[in-house]
């Protein structure tokens, strides 16, 4: 298990060196999107319409934060369950997005897309919203404000702690970890 400190946007050289189980601290700009925003973003890509942020090398965080308290950039902001984005993520990766942050397992299609396009699925600790929110230094809604917590936000993060779950070689940390600790009768 290696440890890396990476800046966004991620390039293919960055992602190809990562292995399932590696600990990564992300720095720079990342973007938020959940189910409702993904449905709209993927439609833009399919129709070749203008995209609200530079997709090449982008990292997408699956999160719907709590509202900020006065003086804070954002409230609590831990990951949501990722399988709900499974049908959209391959299209995002195909168009150059290179990282996803969420929690929980992904479909074979997403794992295959990670291999093909050099993408990484990072796991953040679900339910650690207070801790993760503190690593977000600025937040700005850049698309779909009407979606409330589900709007697309541009975040600046510092040393945002994640673990590589699906790497570009088809490895899956959830599967590997479980196999190691499963007790068969």
């Amino acid at each position, binding site marked *: 298990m290696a440890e890396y400190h990476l800046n966004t946007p991620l390039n293919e050289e960055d992602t190809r060196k990562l292995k399932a189980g590696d600990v990564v601290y992300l720095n720079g700009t990342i973007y938020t999107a959940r189910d409702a925003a993904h449905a709209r973003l993927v439609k833009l890509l399919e129709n070749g319409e203008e995209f609200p942020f530079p997709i090449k090398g982008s990292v997408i965080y699956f999160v*719907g934060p709590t509202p900020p308290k006065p003086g804070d950039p954002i*409230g609590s902001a831990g990951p949501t369950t990722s399988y709900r984005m499974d049908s959209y993520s391959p299209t995002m990766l195909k168009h150059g997005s290179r990282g996803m942050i969420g929690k929980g397992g992904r479909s074979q299609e997403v794992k295959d897309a990670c291999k093909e396009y050099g993408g990484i699925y990072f796991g953040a600790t679900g339910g650690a919203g207070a801790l993760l929110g503190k690593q977000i230094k600025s937040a700005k809604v850049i698309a779909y404000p009407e979606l409330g917590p589900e709007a697309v936000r541009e975040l600046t993060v510092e040393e945002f702690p994640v673990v590589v779950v699906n790497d570009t070689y088809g490895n899956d940390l959830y599967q590997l970890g479980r196999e190691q600790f*499963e007790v068969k009768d």
Partner: protein
Amino acid sequence: MREVEYNDIVEAVKNMIMTTATNLPEDTLEYLETAYKEEKSEVSKKVIAQLLENAKIARDEKRPLCQDTGLAVFFVRVGADVRVVGGLLKDAINEGTEKGYTDAYLRASTCEPFSRANLKDTVGYNLPAIIHFDIVEGDKIEIEYAAKGGGSENVSRARVFPPAAGKEGIINYVKEVISDAGGNPCPPITVGVGIGGTFEKACISSKHALFRDLGTKNPDPEMAELEEIILEEINKLGIGAMGMGGTKTALGVHIEANPCHIASLPVSVNVQCHSSRHTHITI
């Protein structure tokens, strides 16, 4: 007949919601600390350490433990000798919910089933609350509250078995539900199991079982034993904290059982994430 002011209930519910969002209950903290000591996987141990640090940040800085501040779920036992003056009890609970979620900067997570439109500006901020009422003896109002997140709710399931399925069928079913859920419900989890009753009674019982503090047992020794057996079986699955692999997939299994129809054996499995935000008050 004892009388309780509507506004006193609004205030009590508001305070309950605000405190619960930022303070992990003592039972959950204690069980997470033990899990940290006993967990065999280094990765899972790291995750649990983050959860304990998160709980400290949330409490010290009054930040929500999790961005999913849940739907507000209540079990309310109303004494037959008490009445609310100045409005309906149900309205007071909803009003307290809205105030608590707004004042503590919690997330409004209720929406229309298909359009997914958020209800904060139409029905109310994170309204309606989910409220289960019961009438009991006495002149008190007892309110149990939990903030129920979506990730763990999404993996919950119910099924009506034929009686022949028996204990074995139930053990296997709960294992199957938790195995399929993997890391999605944010383990280490608490598992509520409703057994017997009718289809909906089993579901409500499995929810109520999650309001019990960790470390408490079902008063029926047969059910208490079944709780232990299922817990042991779940922890053999190897799922671990956040699904990273490990020995502490569940912190507890809570069963609530009811008499059922001679033709059926209903069972419901309701899952609670590690951020088990629950509390109760008596007015």
